[in-house]
């Protein structure tokens, strides 16, 4: 097979070493403990963290640390997009217990709207580009927000005893519907969406000069502000309490007086808004909005949610960061097989921890 080189061999050695260590631990220590499962999960956590650290150390030796930091800095825009998309997926999973395949399409719809608003404003003779783009972004967020609200209130909720696979199917149907509607409304050509700025900022870490595009800074700033607002809302508002209650059990939450309909509708709407921001930045990376552009982001977001666990927002964000780190370093090892390497690593981690890195096992009643 072509392309098996240093990286793959190193990864294989690390994995085999981990398995050997785990087997040794299991033989000599774990079996003698009384609370076996507790210690086992702790041992696995420690081993996984160790392996990730080893990989980073090995790659740091291969490229030197400043280069890795530079690579990660250049990929911060991907990271913010992925984090936004993952948060949106997890938000919907928490309240509706389904993976939303239409997430990417809702987002693309918002980005299309944003791009067309931007085009209109430029045609009307506005000159302040930053202001125009912010206006477009805001318009996109609003339209995706409304779209999410509409989907939950008019479609997902009206279904007759639909289970979670059924909801998945509905979102799949919605992908097709939105995919068909976009060319009808916005025309069949991709729309140009300019970036906030094409400049780069140069600064020093120690003796090494670092380069970061200004667009990335905008993306990071907006992501941090939005996510901070979201987490504050989740932690301190009544809606956040409702989300957490609905996540643990929808029936019991509604019996306790939580208006679960409002909670789920708001979650869908906010997920739409988050997706719109992600799609906006993703589009500005490739300078134009396309119908199918969000599909890889969506797949990565699902993988991140699985890696971190669907149950926790923090966990899924860490999953997104890990995926971003893996997939930004992997191409420098081996360009053609990067996806296989990244997904292979995720698969192995998930095999070791089936509920994700931060998932909690919920006892099922038989």
């Amino acid at each position, binding site marked *: 097979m*072509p*392309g098996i080189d240093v990286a793959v061999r190193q990864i294989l050695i690390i994995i085999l070493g981990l398995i050997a260590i785990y087997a040794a631990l299991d033989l000599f220590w774990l079996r003698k403990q009384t609370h076996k499962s507790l210690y086992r999960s702790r041992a696995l956590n420690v081993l996984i963290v160790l392996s990730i650290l080893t990989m980073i150390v090995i790659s740091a030796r291969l490229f030197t640390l400043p280069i890795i930091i530079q690579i990660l800095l250049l990929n911060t825009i991907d990271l913010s997009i992925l984090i936004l998309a993952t948060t949106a997926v997890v938000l919907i999973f928490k309240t509706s217990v389904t*993976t939303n395949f239409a997430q990417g399409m809702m987002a693309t719809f918002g980005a299309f709207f944003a791009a067309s608003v931007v085009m209109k404003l430029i045609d009307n003779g506005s000159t302040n580009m930053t202001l125009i783009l912010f206006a477009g972004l805001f318009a996109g967020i609003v339209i995706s927000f409304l779209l999410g609200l509409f989907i939950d209130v008019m479609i997902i909720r009206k279904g007759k005893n639909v289970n*979670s696979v059924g909801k998945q199917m509905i979102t799949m149907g919605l992908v*097709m*519907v939105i995919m*068909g509607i976009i060319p009808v409304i916005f025309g069949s050509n991709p729309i140009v969406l300019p970036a906030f700025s094409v400049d780069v900022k140069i600064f020093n870490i120690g003796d090494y000069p670092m380069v970061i595009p200004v667009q990335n800074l905008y993306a990071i700033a907006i992501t941090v502000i939005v996510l901070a607002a979201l987490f504050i809302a989740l932690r301190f508002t009544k809606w956040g309490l409702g989300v957490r209650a609905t996540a643990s059990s929808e029936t019991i939450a509604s019996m306790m007086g939580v208006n679960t309909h409002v909670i789920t509708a708001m979650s869908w709407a906010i997920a739409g808004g988050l997706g719109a921001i992600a799609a906006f930045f993703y589009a500005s990376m490739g300078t134009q909005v396309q119908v199918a552009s969000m*599909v890889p982001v969506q797949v990565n977001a699902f993988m991140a949610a699985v890696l971190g666990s669907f149950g926790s927002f923090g966990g899924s964000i860490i999953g997104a960061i890990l995926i971003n780190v893996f997939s930004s370093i992997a191409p420098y090892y081996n360009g053609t097989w990067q996806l296989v390497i990244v997904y292979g690593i995720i698969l192995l981690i998930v095999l070791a921890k089936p509920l994700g890195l931060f998932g909690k096992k919920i006892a099922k009643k038989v």
Partner: protein
Amino acid sequence: MLKLKNVLANFKKQFLSISKHPYFGFIVLGLIFLFALFLRNMGLLTISVINTFTLVMIYSVVAMGFSLLLGFGGLASLGTAGLVGLGSFIMGYFHGIGGMSFGMTIVISIIIALAVGLLVGFISLRIEGMYLAIITLGLGEMLRQFFISYDTFTGGFTGTSLRSFKIFGKLFESGNDNYFNTVYIIVIICFILAMVATINIIKSPTGRALLSMKNSESAAQSMGISIIKYRLLAFILSSVFAVLGGVLYILHTKFSYPPQWNLSYSLDILAAVIVGGAQSIYGIIIGVFLIFGLKVSVLNYIPFFSNNPALIVIFNGVLIVLVVMFYPGGLIRLLQTSWFKLKIKLAKIKMKWRTYRYGKDDE
């Protein structure tokens, strides 16, 4: 005269008893498809309709394997596209480029399908539910990347094409009617065989065990059903069906290129199974026809749709949404219930006519 009547009655009785057999419907369906080929050769049907029929049959084979997994095993998988692609590339590489015999290629493809099915089955023992669906989605993406990168096997972005194939010592070159007809008949035979295999699995203890596993794993385990065995079996069966579907696909379309085996293909298969009805063979065929075949064979002839191609996509999407929202058992359940209601209505009308004809019964 009396004798003839007796013979006729006997014949009718025998026919009725035969028509109750599940294979009867399959063979009739196969004959209908064969009849379509005759119509095409007479010039009454266009070639695109026959192409659609072939694709519907091939995808039905894939979807039947998938329904064993989803409708009976209750295990969601989104890696179908990768497996179908694998089958097509195995055929293209070993038979088309390597010159291996047809039967040997099928054996190799089944062995590879077994291996992949075992692998995914072992993964499914540890990961469950939505997590499994997404991990299999990742596996599908990995397979696609593998197809794109490993270009000695698949031809990279340009893909593999199959110019000719050899079966029972006869060589069939692509591009003429002989090739087309042979492939069509092979596909029909495989389609019927797949249906027979599926119904035998469903009605056998294996199918019952799968169904019980879907409804409650703990209950199934307590009745002595080995979860490991049946999960692995479900994945192996579905991957064998998918890989064979891929082999048929490359025979029919004569090419296969890696980027085509993406997530949306897996989702289409999933949609076909759900829309038609995951637990009924006819339901699956209806679903596959709605998702893959409706566009080419029906909607293109309606001017409203053929003028606005975007509307076809919207139509498909709305159809999926409506069916899932209001008929969770799939379209076949709708047909069954409406047939049942019609029967009751007919019985009532018959009763009314009888009271009109012969008068009311005395109390």
